[in-house]
C-alpha cells in the first residue's frame, strides 16, 4: 500500500460508523465510504475522532470475538465490510493492506494523526512539555551515543531507537509507573522513557561500574528494576514469554498492573511469540504484546519475512483483539494505549501493531543498502518529535525559544552523562564473579 496523502476518507468512514460497525454492513457500503473522498477539515476530524467506548470486563470468559460481535466498539472499524483503516491516512504506515477480516474480528485502528488535541486527551501543557523533553532526551542521548561509538568509547552492538520515540513516550505516559515493561535489545528509548537516568545509561554503554547493570549488560541489556523496567534482551523473541510472565505475576499478585512487552516485527516470526500469545490469551492475562513494527528486521523488510504483513492480525488465532496504531504520533499512541490498557488490566490481552520507523541503520555496522534514499526522505516528514513541536507551536502552547531551551537543557544533561560515564571507573575485575548467584559465597568459581 503506497502512501496516500491526507484525505478524510477514514474520518468520513468514522462519521458513517453506524453503518460500518454494523456486522451486517456490506462491502458495498464500505466501498462507498472509501470512495466518497471529501476534504473535510481537521476540526471535523477531531469531532468525529474514534473513541472506543469503555467496555466492562465480561463477568466470565467471553472471547474477544464474541465480545466484539456482541458489543461493537463505536468507531473502531473492523469486521466484515469495514473500510480500510489505512486508506486516506496522512502517514505511510508501511505495508498494511486493506483489511479483509473475518466478521468476528475485534480489530481497532488508531491510524490517524493530528486527530487528537491535548485537551481531549486530558494532557496539560506541563505534561506536553515533559513528553517533549523525554522524546528529545532519547534522541539526543542516542545521537551522542552514536558519536561516542565513533570515538570508540562504546563498543559492542549499539541499536539506535531514533524515530521510534513516540512509541516509548506515548505508551509510558499512558500507563502506570509500576506496570512492568520488557523489551528487546533496542532498549535505550524505553529505558529513558521509564525514567532511567541518562548517567546510568551512558555509563552502561561505556561499560563502567556506575552503569545500570554495573557494566555487565551494555547497550542491549539496560535494566532498572526500581522503575519496573525488566530489561532489554538480546535474543530475538526471547523476552516475549518472559513479558507474559510479568503479566502472570500481576494477575497472581493482584497488583492491577499490566505488562508491556515490546518486540520487533522480526520477532513475530519466532515460536516464542506464538506460544506466549496463546498463553496470554488462555490465562486471560493483563498483557500488551506490542510489536514495534519499524518494518525491518536488520535488512529484511516485513514483506520478505511474512506471509501476512498485517501484524495486528497476529493475535486473531488466539482470540485476541488486534490494534493498529500509528506509532509516529505521540498523541495517537497515548490515546490508543490509554484505551486498551484500561481494558487489559481486567485480564484481556491485546496484540498491538505499532507502525513506526527507524531512521538509522539496524546497528552501527549497517550500511542500509536495503532501503532507498527516497523512502527515508519520505519518512522524514513523519518525525514524531518534529510533529509534537509543530503542534505546540501551532497551538501556541510554547514559544520556539522555550522549546529550544528545553533542547539545550537536554543536550547539557546528555553531555553531563558522557562526562559521568568517562569519569566512572571500569568495574574492578573481582566484580566479574559477582551477580552470578544470589548466594554470593557460592563455591562455583575457585
Amino acid at each position, binding site marked *: 500500500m503506497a502512501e496516500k496523502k491526507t484525505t478524510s476518507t477514514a474520518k468520513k468512514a468514522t462519521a458513517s460508523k453506524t453503518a460500518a460497525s454494523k456486522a451486517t454492513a456490506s462491502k458495498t457500503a464500505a466501498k462507498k465510504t472509501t470512495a466518497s473522498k471529501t476534504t473535510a477539515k481537521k476540526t471535523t476530524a477531531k469531532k468525529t475522532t474514534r473513541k472506543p467506548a469503555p467496555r466492562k470486563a465480561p463477568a466470565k470468559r467471553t472471547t474477544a470475538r464474541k465480545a466484539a460481535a456482541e458489543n461493537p466498539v463505536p468507531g473502531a472499524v473492523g469486521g466484515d465490510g469495514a473500510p480500510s483503516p489505512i486508506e486516506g491516512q496522512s502517514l505511510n504506515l508501511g505495508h498494511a493492506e486493506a483489511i479483509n477480516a473475518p466478521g468476528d474480528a475485534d480489530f481497532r485502528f488508531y491510524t490517524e494523526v493530528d486527530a487528537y488535541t491535548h485537551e481531549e486527551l486530558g494532557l496539560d501543557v506541563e505534561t506536553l512539555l515533559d513528553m517533549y523533553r523525554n522524546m528529545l532526551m532519547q534522541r539526543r542521548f542516542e545521537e551522542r551515543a552514536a558519536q561516542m561509538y565513533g570515538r570508540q568509547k562504546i563498543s559492542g552492538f549499539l541499536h539506535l531507537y531514533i524515530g521510534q520515540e513516540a512509541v516509548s513516550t506515548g505508551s509510558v505516559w499512558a500507563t502506570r509507573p509500576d506496570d512492568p515493561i520488557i523489551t528487546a535489545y533496542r532498549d535505550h528509548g524505553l529505558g529513558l522513557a521509564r525514567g532511567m537516568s541518562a548517567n546510568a545509561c551512558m555509563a552502561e554503554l561505556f561499560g563502567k561500574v556506575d552503569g545500570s547493570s554495573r*557494566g555487565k549488560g551494555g547497550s542491549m541489556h539496560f535494566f532498572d528494576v526500581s522503575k519496573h523496567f525488566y530489561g532489554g534482551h538480546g535474543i530475538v523473541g*526471547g523476552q516475549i514469554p518472559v513479558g507474559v510472565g*510479568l503479566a502472570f505475576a500481576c494477575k497472581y499478585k493482584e497488583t492491577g498492573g499490566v505488562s508491556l512487552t515490546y518486540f520487533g516485527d522480526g520477532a513475530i516470526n519466532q515460536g516464542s511469540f506464538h*506460544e506466549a500469545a496463546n498463553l496470554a490469551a488462555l490465562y486471560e492475562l493483563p498483557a500488551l504484546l506490542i510489536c514495534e513494527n519499524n518494518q525491518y528486521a536488520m535488512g529484511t523488510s516485513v514483506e520478505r519475512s511474512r506471509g501476512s504483513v498485517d501484524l495486528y492480525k497476529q493475535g486473531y488465532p488466539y482470540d485476541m483483539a488486534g490494534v493498529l496504531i500509528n506509532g509516529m504520533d505521540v498523541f495517537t499512541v497515548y490515546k490508543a494505549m490509554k484505551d486498551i490498557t484500561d481494558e487489559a488490566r481486567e485480564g484481556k490481552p491485546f496484540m498491538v501493531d505499532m507502525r513506526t520507523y527507524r531512521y538509522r541503520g539496524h546497528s552501527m555496522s549497517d550500511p542500509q543498502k536495503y532501503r532507498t534514499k527516497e523512502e527515508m526522505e519520505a519518512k522524514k516528514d513523519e518525525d514524531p518529535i518534529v510533529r509534537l513541536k509543530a503542534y505546540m507551536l501551532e497551538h501556541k502552547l510554547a514559544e520556539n525559544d522555550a522549546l529550544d531551551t528545553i533542547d539545550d537543557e537536554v543536550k547539557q544533561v546528555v553531555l553531563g552523562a558522557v562526562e559521568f560515564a568517562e569519569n566512572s571507573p571500569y568495574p574492578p575485575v573481582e566484580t566479574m564473579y559477582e551477580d552470578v548467584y*544470589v548466594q554470593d559465597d*557460592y563455591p562455583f568459581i575457585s
Partner: protein
Amino acid sequence: MAELQFREALRAAMTEEMERDENVFLMGEEVAEYNGAYKVSQGMLDQFGPKRIIDTPISENGFSGLGIGAAMMGLRPIIEFMTWNFAFVAFDQIVSNAAKMRYMSGGQLKVPIVFRGGNGAAGQLAATHSNSTEPFYANVPGLKIVAPSNPDDAKGLLKSAIRDDDPVLFMESELMFGMKGEVSDAVDYTIPIGEARIAREGDDLTIVAHSKSYWLAMEAAEELSKQGYEATVIDPRTIRPFPFDAVIDSVKKTNRLVIVDESQPFGGIASEVGFQIQQRAFDYLDAPVQRVTAKDVPAPYAKNLIEAWMPSVDDTIAAAKRALYVN
C-alpha cells in the same frame, strides 16, 4: 519417617512448600487435571486449585519464559517438564534468561524458579526420549543442578530448591518415580544443595555416581566386596555446584576413582569430575581415573542395543578393576 515412592516424596516437598509460601505455584503439561504425566502432582489441583496448579499447552519455550517472568516479579514457580527431553525447546529460556538475568542486570534481579521433571533413559524409547541432559546445563553459570538418587533426598533437596533464590534444575530419573524409600516427615526437612552423601565407605577405591547410576554403583560395590575390594560410594546429589571436596577427600584415602554417569562421555559430567580430580588430587592417584558412561551414539531402540548403550553394573565392575589393576 514414612515409606514413600519417589514421586510421592516430590509431591510432599511441593505440597509442603506451597502450604508454607503462597508465592509458590506449579505449572506444566498435564500437571493439574490429569494429575501429572507421571502422577507426581496427583491430587494437588484439588488441594490448591487452578490458580496455583496450572495446566499448560505443549509450549515448553512459552511456559518456561512465563515462569521466569513471574519469578522476576517475586513469585516462586515450579515448572514441570514432562521430561527433560522436551526442555530442549525451552533451552533458550533456561540458558539465556533464567541463568543470565541476574548477571546482566548487575545483580538487580533474582530468578527463584525450579525447573523439574524426568531425566535420562527409560527403556526402549529411542534417541529423542533418552537423554541425560545434565551436561548441557552444567556448562552454564547461573544455574544450579540437582539430581537425587532416592526419595528422601528428593524431598529434602526439592524443598531446598524451591526455597533457593537462584534457578534450580531438578532432574529426576524417569525410571525411579515408583522407587520406594523411607522419607523424613520432619517439619522443614531440607537437605542443602551442594553437599554429597557418602553412601558406603571402603578403602580400596572411590566410586562417584548420581541419580539412577548411583544404584549401579552400589550394586557394583557389593559385588566388588564379595571379591575382596571395598569401595567408597559417593552420591554427589548436586551436579552444580559439584561437591568436589568430598570426592577429593575420598580419593586421598582410596587413591583410585571411578565415575559412573549416564550422560554422553564427551564433555560430560564424568569428564569434568575426572579433570578436576587429576588437577586437584593428582599426587594421590595410583591409577588413571576411569569413567563409565552411555555409549557415544544416540540412544538406540532395540532391547539389546539400549542395554548395551547404558552404563551397567558389569561396566562399573570392569572399570573398577582397571583402576585396581586387577583382572
